[in-house]
């Protein structure tokens, strides 16, 4: 894995190199004039909320433009369509965020499939799949969860049967975000029923091109009423052996690379979907908008900003938000960290629980008006907060539930006995 070493350094290197400084200036200059104007239609709150082809094409064009300007895949080798830089994706992500740029739609590709292919793929796989992944020419989805296997992911039953140089795959995946738009899926399945973990293998399978010949995608409606995730039925889908990622029986190890990056703790975490939240307004989520919201909100006939209990709740959230940034900063400095995984493994929990609690408090600030759905013209802030609050449960459930994250932290960092 020699080609990987500079990527591994990405998260450890905190000081700004001349390359990074020059690159930062380039990003800033480009972003100053190239962020797309808001379209006439509403944009989704996040990539897994994309619900129409119109939204997707708008965001796809944005990712392609940013890719062509060198802001996506900065640290991947040029041979795989990357920028061939060192530790620059972090810089690009910071600048994208600071500029309030929209998010990139190919989140599963950038955040999960890309790093997994980079670490485990063959040379041919890397050359084939990474360039269109980075440019969003091809959209990816993740086929891990099944009706019977969620937190206990290694219980997946989707089965790949070997047939000469090919595999024949059947099974049932659920909660598959973006499958309705996806060209490819990263798939965790079983190649042997004898061993729970050692019976797993990892594949890339086609989605869009296989609809009607082995793949069916059915939308699932979320509690918000929106679409976003799907169930994917796989029935005798035939794929060549060169679609396998990693060795037969090594699927669990490959999946761990995916999960590490999905949860923000992977070494390749930086070349993921950077960028602002991209909704209609700045600070659409998170705590920093709460003081202004409190000043603008009326609760029980009085300014919400005058309610001491609300004030305390808002400040608690602002403290957590500041701490989140500072923990990220501290994680770069081993002298201020006791255990190398202690802070990175908290990342997903901290963000998802902060967003959830901030959205809940934002609703509280609205008092009676927080009962109004976004379809009601009188809903405060366009009804974004109740929607954000419901959506926040997606973050605390997906990518390893908060409970599972706490198990992992307790076991890996505190050395407590495994809860199984």
């Amino acid at each position, binding site marked *: 894995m020699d080609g990987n070493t500079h990527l591994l350094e990405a998260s450890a290197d*905190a*000081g700004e190199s001349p390359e990074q400084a020059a690159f930062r200036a380039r990003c800033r200059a480009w972003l100053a004039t190239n962020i797309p104007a808001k379209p006439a239609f509403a944009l989704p709150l996040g990539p897994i909320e994309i619900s129409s082809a119109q939204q997707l094409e708008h965001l796809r064009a944005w990712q392609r433009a940013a890719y062509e300007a060198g802001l996506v895949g900065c640290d991947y080798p040029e041979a795989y369509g990357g920028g061939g830089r060192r530790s620059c994706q972090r810089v690009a992500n910071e600048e994208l965020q600071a500029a309030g740029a929209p998010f990139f739609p190919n989140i599963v590709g950038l955040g999960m499939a890309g790093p997994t292919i980079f670490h485990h793929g063959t040379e041919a796989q890397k050359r084939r799949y990474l360039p269109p992944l980075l440019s969003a020419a091809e959209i990816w989805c993740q086929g891990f969860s099944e009706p019977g296997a969620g937190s206990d992911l290694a219980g997946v039953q989707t089965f790949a049967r070997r047939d000469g140089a090919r595999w024949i795959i059947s099974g049932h995946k659920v909660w598959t975000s973006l499958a309705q738009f996806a060209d490819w899926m990263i798939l965790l399945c079983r190649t042997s029923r004898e061993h729970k973990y050692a019976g797993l293998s990892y594949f890339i399978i086609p989605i869009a091109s296989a609809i009607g010949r082995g793949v069916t995608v059915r939308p699932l409606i979320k509690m918000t009423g929106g679409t976003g995730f799907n169930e994917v039925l796989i029935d005798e889908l035939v794929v060549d052996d060169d679609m396998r990622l990693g060795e037969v029986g090594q699927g669990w190890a490959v999946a761990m690379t995916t999960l590490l990056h999905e949860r923000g703790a992977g070494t390749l975490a930086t070349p993921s979907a950077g960028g602002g939240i991209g909704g209609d307004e700045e600070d659409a989520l998170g705590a920093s908008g709460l*003081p202004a919201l*409190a*000043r603008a909100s009326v609760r029980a006939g009085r*300014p919400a*900003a*005058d309610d*001491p209990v609300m*004030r*305390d709740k*808002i*400040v*608690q959230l*602002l*403290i*957590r938000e*500041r*701490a989140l940034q*500072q*923990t990220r*900063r*501290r994680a*770069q*400095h081993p*002298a*201020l960290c*006791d255990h190398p995984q*202690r*802070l990175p493994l*908290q990342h997903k*929990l*901290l963000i998802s629980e902060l967003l959830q609690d901030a959205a809940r408090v934002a609703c509280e600030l609205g008092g009676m008006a927080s009962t109004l759905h976004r379809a009601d013209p009188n809903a405060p802030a366009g009804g974004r907060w109740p929607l954000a609050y419901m959506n926040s449960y997606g973050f605390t459930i997906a990518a390893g539930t908060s*409970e599972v994250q*706490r*198990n992992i*932290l*307790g*076991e890996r*960092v*505190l*050395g*407590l*006995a*495994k*809860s199984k």
Partner: protein
Amino acid sequence: MNSPDDFGFEDDAALLKRTARRLLETRASTDALHRLVAGRVDATRECLWDQALWAELVALGWTAIAVPESADGFGMGLPAICGLIEEVGRAALPSPLVATLCATYVLRACDSPAAEALLRRVAEGAAVSLAGTDARGSWEHEDTDVTATSSGGAGSNGQVTLDGVACYVQDAQKAEVFLVKARAPAGVGLYVVDARAPGVTVHPDAILDLTRDQARVELRGVTLPADASVAAAPPDGPRALRAAEPAMLAILAADMVGAAEWQLQTTAEYARTRVQFDRPLGFFQAVKHPLVDMMMKIDEARSLVYDAACSFEHEPAHAELRARMAKSSASDAAAYCSSRSVQLHGGIGFTWECFVHLYFKRQKHNEVLLGDGAYQRAKLADALIGPIGGTRACA
């Protein structure tokens, strides 16, 4: 903007912290602490500490670290000092170090020969404690029950007389010098008073925390030469206190973070080894998850401590807000970790013999010093949301 990525926590700071950890682990183990301070259950007014160890720490320069080089100190940055204090908290060390460092930052914010002279004494090992809290326990800088009266004319040959009582004085029995907050006709000033000066009486409080002492310091006609005792002439006292406040809050928060880390590690160790229902306790998620929450609260507070310390050195305009955030977070982390450390030890955790109560009590004490979490957040709300009633005024 020029705030360093590494919080200004550099190699010398890391070395100081490591050295302190090793030294305190051998010289001030929890075992030894328990023998020292918990030998009797009725010692609530006593001042039990290891003076020989203190002399060594002074010889190592621990009181000099925050004193500027111009007054013969080491002039280290606040991040390094917070690193050291984390270790002091982790050891729950009974010592006047925290009180002295807090006073040091106040003296640094004063600009007077008396303050300069006291800084030099601190560098040589004098323990100093702030004495100014009123009988109501106010956390506001303007409040004090001590009065200062000048006589013999203003200027260098004048005299000042202090009268009144300063409450809740930290480590008063260990301090050689008090930095007294007193009200004069011109406003509030700060005065250097020797603990043994005629007219000074220290009345120890009976307190819960066994790892420190606290007292009411009574001043009756304490008459001092003005040039040697006026550290901050009235009305400059509150300004100096405010300038030092971010550093004091960060130091207290660092002590709590260090103590909370001890609570976490000790309780996690118990959960790894104690077996019930044929499993180590940590197998059970009702034990595992609170331990993880302890860790996350500690990490939140710890990140904010270094944020505050770094701001104090590099972005002073933001230092107060960030230090209040750190103190709020650390006070809440301390409360949570204290609660869980006792609960998750079961019956043994409820005994005098188990060490966790020593930290529980030290944390409870630190939680309220200079303002608890709710107080800090009320101050933060005024700054970040606007004063109560402000919205109506605009509307």
